[in-house]
């Protein structure tokens, strides 16, 4: 692996995107190139997975000087936590491309490729400035894809998400720069590498608090945690299918990833100190968004709330400070990405065929499109956390972890099984199953490509629920490393 496999994974999509822009290729050619790229990346990621050692430390490191005057380096690496998100990306994106196959323009495909670069770059960065670079760079193609191909009041949503997230990120940028300067004062040289930043000892408690807050605001907006969630509704509702797919299934998880990757090692003490608050914020979000989802009539907004609800639960998991909760959170990231991603693809198709997003105007889909309904049902059961799907394994572990953290929180967090079931099944009844006399004759059942695209998701959802252990063993050493070496919790 000495040819810089991570760099290839990051920059191949960008290279393809720019070549497509320069070359006189039509939408179809671009789409084929994008799909081929996704497949190549899938193969590369499989190689990474295969060669990944069972340890909690960074692997596949790459290091090049970038702006050496200020110690900013191009530095990459992955550990178990990044690995699972990487696997997720590599699996989901080809499926999504199969779903978006027809009727998309060149700009759409170029944007998708660029988003992919941004996501993987964010995932691999070991340097804070590089991380920030990709983190913000990711927004640009998102901006384009929603602004150009969205529906409804798309420009407004675009500006809302962009300004909101950039504003959050600015706090993080300030924190990053402050940390860099603090490092300079302490050690006499510039560095923004994560490994160096964690060695800073001179920060006072007040400083640390502010910096912690700076990071957390950026990530809380991205996730989103209560009360930073209002961008979510319009964005999810107005995004095109590809955009909302990537936003919900991957980009939201990067907020969680950011907390684990940066906040936890840089501020381990504050992380432990504030863990109870975040556990409760997560649980509150879980319940709040879950109840809010119940009466939403716009199906995409409903899924937005449902996503937010589960992401709150993921945040609860990573702050439980024990191996159950954190492993469960890592697992729920996968489970939720697959289920939500799949649901958004399915709903996107429904919107594409019928032009309807309102739940009361739907109904009777099941009769018209049985295969569609089967897949919808599988995704839905995963969201609900039915045993036999990976949703259950992850929710169970998080509840277990939360209970270990605080029994009362554990009991309250178990409410998730009830809340998700209520809104999802009620929606399923009104939008898909029951015939409300609405005209849905335009609804088409899945074609062959769509079935092929959806099968890996459905298969993994069930396989990971029936045999979770096989998927766990590469995550666990990393989680142990986090807990024992970084947070220094020995008796959890």
């Amino acid at each position, binding site marked *: 692996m000495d040819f810089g496999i991570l760099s290839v994974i990051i920059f191949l999509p960008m290279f393809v995107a720019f070549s497509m822009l320069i070359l006189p290729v039509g939408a179809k050619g671009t789409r084929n190139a994008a799909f081929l790229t996704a497949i190549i990346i899938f193969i590369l990621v499989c190689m990474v997975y295969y060669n990944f050692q069972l340890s909690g430390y960074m692997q596949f490191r790459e290091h090049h000087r970038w702006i050496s005057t200020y110690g900013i380096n191009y530095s990459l690496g992955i550990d178990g936590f990044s690995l699972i998100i990487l696997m997720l990306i590599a699996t989901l994106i080809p499926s999504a491309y199969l779903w978006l196959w027809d009727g998309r323009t060149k700009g759409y495909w170029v944007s998708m490729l660029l988003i992919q670069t941004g996501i993987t770059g964010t995932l691999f960065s070991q340097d804070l400035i590089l991380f920030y670079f990709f983190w913000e760079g990711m927004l640009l193609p998102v901006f384009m894809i929603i602004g150009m191909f969205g529906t409804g009041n798309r420009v407004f949503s675009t500006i809302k998400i962009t300004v909101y997230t950039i504003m959050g990120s600015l706090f993080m940028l300030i924190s990053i720069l402050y940390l860099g300067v603090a490092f300079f004062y302490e050690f006499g040289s510039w560095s923004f590498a994560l490994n160096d930043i964690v060695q800073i000892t001179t920060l006072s408690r007040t400083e640390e608090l502010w910096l912690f807050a700076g990071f957390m605001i950026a990530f809380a907006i991205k996730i989103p945690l209560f009360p930073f969630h*209002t961008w979510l509704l319009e964005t999810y509702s107005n995004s095109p299918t590809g955009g909302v797919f990537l936003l919900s299934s991957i980009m939201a998880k990067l907020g969680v990833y950011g907390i684990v990757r940066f906040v936890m090692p840089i501020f381990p003490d504050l992380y432990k100190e504030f863990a109870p608050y975040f556990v409760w914020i997560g649980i509150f979000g879980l319940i709040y968004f879950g109840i809010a989802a119940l009466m939403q009539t716009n199906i995409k907004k409903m899924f937005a709330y449902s996503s937010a609800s589960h992401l709150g639960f993921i945040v609860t998991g990573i702050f439980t400070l024990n191996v159950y909760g954190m492993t469960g959170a890592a697992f729920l990231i996968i489970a939720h990405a697959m289920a939500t991603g799949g649901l958004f693809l399915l709903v996107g198709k429904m919107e594409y065929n019928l032009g309807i997003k309102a739940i009361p105007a739907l109904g009777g889909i099941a009769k018209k499109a049985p*295969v569609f309904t089967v897949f919808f049902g599988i995704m839905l059961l995963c969201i609900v956390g039915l045993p*036999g799907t990976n949703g259950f394994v992850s929710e169970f572990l998080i509840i277990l972890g939360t*209970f270990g953290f605080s029994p009362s929180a554990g*009991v309250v967090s178990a409410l998730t099984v009830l809340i998700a*079931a209520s809104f999802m099944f009620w929606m399923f*009844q009104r939008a898909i199953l029951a015939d409300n006399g609405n005209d849905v004759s335009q609804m088409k059942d899945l074609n062959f490509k769509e079935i092929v695209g959806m099968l890996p998701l459905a298969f993994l959802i069930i396989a990971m629920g029936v045999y979770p252990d096989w998927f766990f063993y590469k995550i666990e050493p990393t989680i142990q490393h986090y807990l024992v070496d970084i947070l220094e919790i020995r008796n959890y």
Partner: protein
Amino acid sequence: MNNFLLAWIVLIPLLSSMTLGLMYLFSIKVIKIPNIVFTVLGLSSPFLSFMIGFSFFLQMIGNHEIFLYKAYRWLSVDGYDIDMGFMADKLSIFMVLFITFVGGLIHIYASGYMKTDKGYGKFFFYFNLFLASMLLLVLADSPIIMFIGWEGVGVCSYFLISYYYEDTKNVQAGNKAFIANRVGDLGFIIAMITMIYYVGSNGFDYINLEAGMQNVPINVLTFIGSALFVGAIGKSAQIPLFVWLPDAMAGPTPVSALIHAATMVTAGVYMVARFHFLYDLIPNVGLIIAYVGAFSALFAAIIATKQTDIKKILAYSTMSQLGYMFIAVGLGGYSVGIFHVFTHAFFKALLFMGAGAVIVALHHEQNIFKMGGMRSKTPIVYFAMLIATLAITGIPPFAGFFSKDEILLTAFSSGEYLIWGIGVLTAILTAYYMFRLLFVVFHGKNYQESRKLHTISKSMIMPLIVLAFGSIVAGFIGIPEILGGNNLVGSWLNDWKNSSLHVEHSREFILMGINILAAVIGTYVAYKKFFNYDMAIVPKYNGIIWKKFYIDEIYDRFIVKKVKEVSIFISYKVDVNFIDMIVMGLSRGFIKSGHFISKVQNANTRFYAFFMLVGISVISTYLIMVMR
């Protein structure tokens, strides 16, 4: 050792259901597959499972062997392993036998009942999946694997109840069932997690849990026991989570038979029996269970006396009988409870199938007061129903008599006379409402003689006969010692505390007499009121019993509606008018202040010059004052 065959008891129906599901999709999408293929596949799996189960049963006779099979490590976190393991002890195998047997008969019946249905393959997909889940539930070796089956049963019941999904009402009924079950599951999950922390340090299978229970503080055990019982309440439709059961009649009749007879609702009873080592330690919770059971039994019986829908009457009778079972298991008579589960499976399946046959014959008419006179038209169904009714009423020597008698004996000998009294009262009511149904449907004067009956297929009649026979003899395996039997059920499951064994024989006879008397009283009242009932006018009921004590309305008003209001409040008021207001207010504030400041740039040169002057003056004044 052929222990891996345990897994196949579950796997056969599971694989068969998967095949059926794929074949059904293939059939509706590509080429139509004839129904016979689905029939063969769907019907063979319960019988194969039964055969395997029976082979284990034979190996168990006369010894205390427990068969264990660990298929693979299901989950391992932090060195804590949970295996996908199967365990067959006497209780599990007992359950497996009658689940597969009665379930198989219901499958046969369904193949006739659903013959003309478009979703024939889909129906058997759900049915086999249901059976697989139920078998996993009883064969699991740890609570968490049991929970997989537990939830699988729940979701299959959802799909089966909302089988005719075009009608919103049916899907609503399915939702209600699933969500009421989920409330129970919440308790189950909490109990499981508490158990992992407090009890399961050596492993999470039943054997380790049983060993671990001994050193756990009693309040923790009480918490676990209560939470588990919440799960049982949800699944077995007891007060206060019973509301889904009557609505569950929205599904096709075989579904009702399957849910009510052999599977699903008995899961709660099974679970309490499975955790007998826990409930033995916390008799107070057991007492609560018994009381919940008793009140549910009475409550359901009262409601059943006024219902007119044949399936709803049977639904409430199920709830009532489940109440009896909980009385037994709550008071420590686990084998007695399981015995009643067993006999109940036979006669309740028979009742539902008979009702289904009548319903089919009358072109899907469900109001008993629009039936009448069916005795001459469908004599086989009549005799089957008569036997089942006698069995549920508790007339000797039919199946229900022995199990119900033992339950009441358990209650009496435990000193819980109130529960015993409720039980006897319920027995009177049971006899009354069941014979009311029978008399009205089969003996009542029919004013629609001319109507042509729908034919009942042979595959529907055959299971009726088998089950009628079963309803007669099923009780014989549990004949108590005083009647010369040797209580095979009790000795089969003999290693448990069984409080019914410590009563004087004379008193036991008296109690038995009281039970028979209760059944006769109920029957007599029903006979007086409803024999040869004249149905010139369909009676209209109202009042609190007919309205089922307004429980649905109360839940709707005080829970569902409130949650919906909160939801609207959150998503349309708080989020839009408060949180988003702040966010958008911030951004609008920036825009507004931008507008305001941009007014300064008004292209008036003289204005600019004036401000320059002001600025210069301020700066120079500052410089002069400070820098001096």
